């Protein structure tokens, strides 16, 4: 586990001590959920360890699972903020695709490492800005605005690539995905994922920005009356999601050594599902970064165990659906009995 898990406080959760700010109580409740998610993850690890002890319980496998999880993981952190604020961002996968192809065109690659990184992030932020302006100031429903962005960004990505696979030839970018680049055995991609997670957790739980986000999601009208600039807050949140997509696009470029317009396929579903499994309310007002990240890790651990056991896609999909339902049920039960 590389993401910071806030210390489990199941004992305090049982005693509602009615702390002054409402979000503290919510956090305590969320921690019970976090604990049950950890239980699900532990159960999966036991299954993996029993079925494939040599391959699963292996440092290389841990590195593999965390690396594969980092791209969607970073996207999920941004998505969690958006959902906590009562919004939704359906365009994340398309933004990742657009950013990754824009950053890997022949022209961009001429600028080397910095050019690729810069382009990926700027394209991500730019798309987030458009989403944010449309939703916050154009009063568009987030579902529609980001759905429109999904279509346009995918279209533009296709136009840029012309359907071709853009192979990265910049050595410094490629090297970042190799074993030699590991820092103390930790792949750089996983480090980025960890840093994004820590910052996301701090921002959501320890800053005014985070409290405003929860407030806007819980009750926008009350938030407005309390003096929060709800529109500006929304704009910032979609910018943040776009930024995460830009970072994720760069990670994907490093990981796959290429840019393709099919990149980031269905990331929106993975990220939303991970956030929901992690205990984020789709209606807004509640959610934790820790839960979302655990949701992502559960997803990728399942995928890994299935692949190691050579289960085929059909079985994988059926079982994945069942495990998602089970995870949510376990979590709900734990949350309601404590």
């Amino acid at each position, binding site marked *: 586990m590389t993401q910071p898990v806030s210390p489990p406080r199941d004992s305090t959760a049982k005693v509602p001590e009615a702390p002054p700010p409402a979000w503290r109580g919510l956090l305590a409740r969320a921690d019970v959920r976090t604990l049950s998610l950890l239980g699900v993850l532990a159960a999966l690890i036991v299954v993996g360890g029993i079925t*494939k002890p*040599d*391959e699963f319980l*292996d440092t*290389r*496998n841990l590195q*593999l699972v965390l*690396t*594969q999880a980092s791209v969607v993981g970073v996207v999920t952190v941004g998505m969690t903020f958006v959902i906590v604020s009562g919004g939704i961002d359906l365009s994340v996968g398309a933004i990742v695709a657009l950013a990754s192809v824009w950053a890997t065109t022949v022209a961009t690659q001429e600028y080397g490492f910095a050019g690729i990184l810069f382009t990926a992030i700027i394209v991500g932020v730019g798309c987030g800005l458009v989403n944010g302006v449309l939703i916050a100031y154009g009063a568009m429903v987030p579902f529609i605005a980001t759905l429109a962005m999904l279509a346009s960004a995918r279209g533009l990505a*296709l136009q840029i690539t*012309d*359907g*071709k*696979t853009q*192979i990265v030839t910049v050595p410094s970018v490629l090297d970042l*995905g*190799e*074993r030699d680049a590991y820092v103390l055995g930790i792949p750089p991609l996983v480090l980025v994922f960890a840093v994004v997670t820590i910052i996301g957790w701090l921002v959501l739980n320890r800053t005014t920005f985070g409290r405003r986000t929860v407030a806007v999601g819980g009750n926008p009208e009350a938030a407005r009356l309390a003096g929060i600039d709800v529109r500006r807050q929304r704009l910032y949140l979609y910018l943040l999601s776009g930024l995460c997509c830009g970072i994720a696009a760069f990670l*994907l470029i490093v*990981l*796959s*050594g*290429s840019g*393709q*317009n*099919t*990149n*980031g*396929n269905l990331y929106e579903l993975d990220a939303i599902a991970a956030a929901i499994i992690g205990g984020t309310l789709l209606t807004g007002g509640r959610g934790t970064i820790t839960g979302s990240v655990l949701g992502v890790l559960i997803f990728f651990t399942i*995928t*890994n165990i299935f*692949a*190691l*056991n*050579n289960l*085929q*896609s*059909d079985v994988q999909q059926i079982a994945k659906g069942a495990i998602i339902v089970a995870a949510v049920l376990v979590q709900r039960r734990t949350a309601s009995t404590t």
Partner: protein
Amino acid sequence: MTEITSRRGLLFGAAAVSAGALLTGCTSNEPSESKDEPAGNNQPAADDKPGKQVTIGFAGPQADHGWLNAINDNAKDRAKKYSDVTLEITEGSNDTAQQIGQIETLINKKVDVLVVLPADGKALTQVGLKAMRAGIPVVNLDRIFNTPQAYRCWIGGDNYGMGLNAGHYIGEKLKGKSGARVIELAGLDNLELTKQRTKGFDDALKNYPNIKKVARQAAEFTVESGQAKMAQLLQAQSKFDALWNHDDDQGVGALRAIEQAGRDDFLMVGGAGALSAFQAIKQDDGVLKATVLYPPTMAASAIDLARALGQGKGIGGMAEFEIPSSITLYSAVVDKTNVDQYMSTGFK
């Protein structure tokens, strides 16, 4: 990659295969076929000499990846070569309704022959029938219509044959090696063509009792999924001798995963025939030693067939008066020995 076809090859067997091989050959050079005609047969065969003017309508899906893009390019380039062919090409679409509309427009324009690569073969059968009823012969490219009534001639790739040839190539390479282990990185499992490729591969491997397929995972024809699934396969199998990857696009990702894992102790065979794969095979400094074709040149051959249909001619080099009703292309194995010949057909 989403080219869908059902295997009609069984019916037409060897004749179809050789016709396919002949047509594929046609695209890389310009033989004057009429000279090769069998003796005692003087029906008009299509050749490069300008004949009756033919307008060919071409409707394909949206070129959202390398192979489909190559299909469009092949069709356009081939049509340009003939002074007697006018090509009416539509904006590619994956939307069934839109593609039907485009084909109806071409029917109304009264083109002489239609070449259709449907986004979805079954869904576009009706419009194929409509064209045929309007007296416009349809050349159905790759993804087959529901009924032979909807096309005059079908030409497409052989997914079963791809698997078969990949299996035989690997089988020969691992001959004499006891307890050989082989893994398979398949394409999108939702598609019938993936099942056919796997079936062909398994059938070929049955001929080699020393080989056992120890793992199979399905990717999604994308670089990203290829990297992800291959990384898992490499972790699952610490030792194996050969790998067949269904698709060169996802192969870019698979090769990346292999490089990241620092593995080079096996032989890899690809599929489809991307330029990057050909280049890697030619350089011969990695695990990729061969790839099995699913040739996009079929679009050029479809233009040839459409032109011959429009001019009322047969195929050069065959005794038949008419164009065959079905042509299954041969999935040749391209390795270091013949890669130069195919290099120009590689798609990006």
